[in-house]
């Protein structure tokens, strides 16, 4: 059995854990809220979120997402966010435990540039604690808040963001606006696809 997702070959259940990671206020929770809003009427599941007075994620958001049976396997996806604030690193580490795929949500705002860089490095460090390599784990990068430009707020161009975050990783990356829902679902689809691909690849390598 691979050490990633929970896979029960006997019962044919696959449960993958996907974590939305990124600096504070980059829009991780907004991503999940949009996803939840899109399918809450159809999916018999609740999104669990713990917010503070200032509307910040203190622990994590959690949204179990059941994809039903696919090729005889009951596929369950669990979406998590982590608190972005620097000080909650231990919580982030805990949420990363058993992670199968990561969406790194970067903030496009100019003044958040350094926080993006710090956060991606922090992700790399925290994954290392679980013997995972950021270059190997399924990873999708989302450059969020592109809509800020419409409000006259200066945003980083994609090239800069790519150089800062993705130059070495070369992960799939999307421009997005979580508040508008732009490319939120595409990001999700991409990470689920990559996670499942990775899972199959590892299953193939199992003796």
């Amino acid at each position, binding site marked *: 059995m691979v050490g990633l997702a929970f896979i029960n070959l006997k019962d044919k259940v696959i*449960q993958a854990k996907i974590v939305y990671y990124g600096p504070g206020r980059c829009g991780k929770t907004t991503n999940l809220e949009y996803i939840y809003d899109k*399918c809450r*009427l*159809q999916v*018999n599941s609740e999104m*669990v979120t*713990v917010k503070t*007075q*200032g509307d*910040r994620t203190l*622990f*994590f958001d*959690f949204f*179990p*997402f*059941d*994809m*039903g049976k*696919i*090729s005889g*396997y*009951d*596929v369950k996806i669990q979406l998590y966010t982590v608190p972005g604030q620097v*000080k*909650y690193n*231990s*919580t982030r580490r*805990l*949420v990363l*435990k058993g992670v199968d*795929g990561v969406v790194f949500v970067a903030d496009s705002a100019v003044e958040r540039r350094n926080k993006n860089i710090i956060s991606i490095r922090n992700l790399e460090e925290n994954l290392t604690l679980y013997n995972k390599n950021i*270059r*190997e*784990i*399924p990873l999708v*990068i989302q*450059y969020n808040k592109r809509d800020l430009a419409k409000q006259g707020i200066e945003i980083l161009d*994609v090239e800069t*963001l*790519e150089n800062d975050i993705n130059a070495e990783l*070369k*992960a*799939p*990356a*999307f*421009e997005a606006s979580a508040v508008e*829902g732009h*490319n939120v*679902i*595409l990001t999700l*689809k*991409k990470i*689920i*696809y*990559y*996670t499942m691909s*990775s899972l*199959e690849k590892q*299953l*193939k390598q199992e003796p």
Partner: protein
Amino acid sequence: MKTKEESSFLQGVESRLDSLFAEDTPPVREKDAPLPQTAAADIREDIPAPQDSDEPAGSAAGAPNLIPPEDKSSFIAEIEKRFSAIFGEDDKASSALQAAENPDEGAAAAIAEEVAAAPPVKDQPSAPSSILHSPLKDMKSIMLSIEWEINDAILEQLEEEVNKLYLLYTGNRVLQGFLRLLRFLGRYIRVKGVQTNQESINLLLSVYDNLENVMVSEAMTEAQKQGILLDNIKKYRNWVEKTDLSEPEEAAPASAAADDAKPFFSELPEQLPPAQRGAAIQFPEAMRGVAEEPSAAAGASGIVAEKTADEALLRLELPAEERLEAGLQEAHPRPEPSAAGEAAISRFDQQVQEVASSLKNLPPDEAFARAAFELKHIFGAELQALKEEIRVLKSAR
């Protein structure tokens, strides 16, 4: 799983996702979708490594499907139909409910327990869950907000919360010491506004972190808590020495605060261990009586000295705070009661006293009736006076 099953499995995953969120996926545009077009064959025949793609950033903005429609088998088409029925439209929601099985809702609770039960980490000594259930919950929220954005509203909340906690922890000198540091730093930041240096904010956050640690760490002894407080006082003193309190451009009172604030902790020795540090604290003249008050256990122990230092901290009404408060008033003036208003209040008090004294010799029923009448009359008159005052103020503006 065998290769063929894997292939169909991945196809199923993709189709399921396409169907789940069909309305969010724009039509496939080859020029925008280099990865999916090239990867589609691999997806079916082989399993691509997740990071194999070098799809350029932003290229996915066209929102491609992972498998082009022409490559989808009848099996996939069937799945798509099924999931379109599940997630597509509201009038087909019933089938969704049939297909979607109950997710593992216990996972959230499990991780919550995991977070709560996690051993303390060095950079975060307290379990977050303990904060959620402590009186610091609101304070933590405020500090989180301050981390990202500092504005008058949040600093006002900070002061209110500090005052609330200060009352709540009456008698707990250590916690009140932390709260006073927080209050002072919050006021300073509020007065200085954009001129506040990062160090001040860092110190505020640091003091809060330590307050949090002290509050939630059950195993911590009182001596340890006092040691942490004294460490914070030392940091505060260093900050006061470094910070240019003397030249706020718009908040003059802060400059006056410098002289008052500095002596309080100015002679705290740098290298002494916490247990001895309190003994060496020198207090301003106003504090000497408290600081040098003989104690029954004054056998020259450091702990006694620490206690004295804490008492000093808690009893001292920092002149700097008062000055800063004055600065705050200048920057954010609060409506002062007018002379007419004060006179009205005084007159009201006087009338109430007169009514009360006149009722002393009357039978209870009669006294009550008369009191009700008099009070009604007084309230009516005062309300009228207040309305008149409001009218005058409005017309003055």
